[in-house]
């Protein structure tokens, strides 16, 4: 602060240049109709009917250019100090609302869709581009689903067909598990990835890899604190040294009718080398907790407070700072009578997974659980227990 107080008014702005957007759109009159149309196809290149899609005109933030305004802002600041008629510093022009909007549509029988906007509706970026994102599930906030991005180049935009696949997936809400199943597609594949999000905000709750030989997935219900889920399945095939997406299912929603309580919900945790009590591991908020790496933590203890019968431990969004061998997870338990004496619970050399469901070979009763890794944790979002 004193540097600013002592500084003269010969202030220089800090350069702040954005990268140019790659596209610029033509100008439209307010009453002009901007039309965007296209077609969704299934994996057999047939029109995909009744698919909910959304059009998002990219959220555009107007941002003050520091090189043009810093002097004015700072001058106002000093004026507010120099003159008693405080306050003057706040006299700034009106801000505008963040700019974005969504339009929803459902594809016709042949998979086609059409959006129309008035010229005065469209929002532009700094370079005049009208950035459009099409989302296949009608929700513009998710990053977990297919998005098709383009810049409007004319009043009428006709897109090439967009391919999606329908695996006929179903999900059953059983007493203790959610069970997904789907049909085997007719083309080469290596594996599937099933992604499940909170339908309220589309925050990712879980992702499971399923090998090509299987067409089902079963997960403990305690993983999901949200009552309504949105899920989609992405299909991968091997291409050279990596994987390529072959298709993606339009996402669907399911409402859990009889949820199963996460036994670790709102319980406290302790982390190696962390001075404070960790409260974010089991709060069901599924935040992006990345601070573990800041404390060189390789292990965490969940305090269930009393002996509790458990059958599985679910680790959400675990990342380690290394994958060099040895690289295993060990889960141990301690009882209420000997809370610091951790013993094997049959999960002694588990493979660390970003989303890992670890079933105890024999359910047991424990008051504290400890997860230990060979490497420092760089992220751990949530632990649920069932």
């Amino acid at each position, binding site marked *: *602060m*004193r540097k*600013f*107080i002592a500084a003269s008014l010969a202030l220089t702005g*800090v350069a*702040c240049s954005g*990268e140019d*957007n790659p*596209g610029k759109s033509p100008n439209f009159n307010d009453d002009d109709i901007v039309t965007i149309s296209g077609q969704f*196809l299934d994996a057999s290149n047939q029109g995909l009917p009744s698919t909910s899609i959304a059009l998002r005109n*990219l*959220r555009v*933030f107007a*941002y*003050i*250019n*520091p090189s043009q305004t*810093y002097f004015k*802002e*700072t001058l106002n*600041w000093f004026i507010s*100090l120099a003159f*008693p008629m*405080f306050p003057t510093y*706040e006299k*700034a*022009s*009106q*801000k*505008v609302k*963040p700019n974005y909007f969504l339009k929803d549509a459902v594809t016709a029988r042949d998979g086609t869709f059409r959006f129309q906007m008035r010229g005065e509706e469209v929002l532009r*970026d*700094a370079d005049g581009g009208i950035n459009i994102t099409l989302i296949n599930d009608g929700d513009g906030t998710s*990053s*977990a*689903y*297919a*998005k*098709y*991005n*383009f*810049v409007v180049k004319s009043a009428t*935009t006709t897109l*090439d067909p*967009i*391919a999606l696949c329908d695996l006929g997936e179903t999900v059953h809400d059983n007493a203790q598990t959610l069970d997904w199943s789907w049909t085997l597609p007719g*083309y080469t594949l290596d594996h599937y990835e099933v992604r499940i999000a909170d339908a309220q905000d589309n925050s*990712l709750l879980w992702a499971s890899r399923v090998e090509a030989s299987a067409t089902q997935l079963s997960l403990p219900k305690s993983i999901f604190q949200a009552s309504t889920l949105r899920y989609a399945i*992405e299909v991968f*095939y091997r*291409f050279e040294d990596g994987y390529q*997406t*072959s*298709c993606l299912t339009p996402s669907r929603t399911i409402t859990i009718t009889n949820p199963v309580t996460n036994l670790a919900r709102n319980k406290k945790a302790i982390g190696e080398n962390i001075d*404070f*009590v*960790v*409260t974010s591991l089991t709060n069901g908020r599924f935040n*992006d907790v990345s601070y573990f790496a*800041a404390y060189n933590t390789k292990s965490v203890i969940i305090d269930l407070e009393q002996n509790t019968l458990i059958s599985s431990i679910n680790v959400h969004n675990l990342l380690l700072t290394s994958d060099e061998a040895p690289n295993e997870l060990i889960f141990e338990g301690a009882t209420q009578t000997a809370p610091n004496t951790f013993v094997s619970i049959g999960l002694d050399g588990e493979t660390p997974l970003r989303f890992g469901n670890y079933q105890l070979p024999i359910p047991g009763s424990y008051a504290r659980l400890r997860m230990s890794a060979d490497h420092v944790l760089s992220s751990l979002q949530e632990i649920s227990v069932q």
Partner: protein
Amino acid sequence: MGSVLSFKPCWIMLGCILIGACSNQEDKQDTVIAVEAKVFDVTIQSRTPNTYNYNADSASVGQEDYGHETRILLAIPDILTLFRDDVILSSIAHIEIQLVANEGTVNPDNIQLGFVSQNWTPYATWNSRFSLASDQDWATPGGDLLDLAPVSPDVEKVADGLSHKKLMFNVTDSIIAAIDAGEKIQGFLLQIIPSDVNAGNTSKIFTSNHSSAYAPKAILTFNNEDILLP
């Protein structure tokens, strides 16, 4: 669709479909365009409620003995004047305020950055927004806040071998919410909420008078990955 080759037309059509593994990964792929280091900050203390202090290199934010408390008022003008309609630079995906603490005894949930509702000056104190003049008191001693949920930080190590922690407050949604509500954020208020889950209820925070590496700053992340050529 019996092979990769036969699927090729479909694969090509999907070439422009972006599929994010999860939002966290996507966020990290954004390009950081601007670092705003022009910061005004003032340390205010309930122990000396009428004394201004914009000279401190650091402040022990949080709860002191005998119920006294220290907070930091923070203003980043280029952030507080976002969203003007006269100068549009680009699309911002993420606005993050970074502070550096020299220790990590406080549960991050209890480190909170609130949003100040009234303007203030370098002569702000615990009691007043402008202590050189009369009748400029905060409605609530210690700073008036907007009705926005305070933000808690993600935490990272500043560097290997150092115990200092980088506190990263994502204020994007709060700023958007304020603008949606037609309210103006006049600054940020850093405070520490006492709790039995904290190993200690204070944290030493470096101010703008400290070295630039440890001084508060804002990171603007621009939304480039979402835009592709048609």
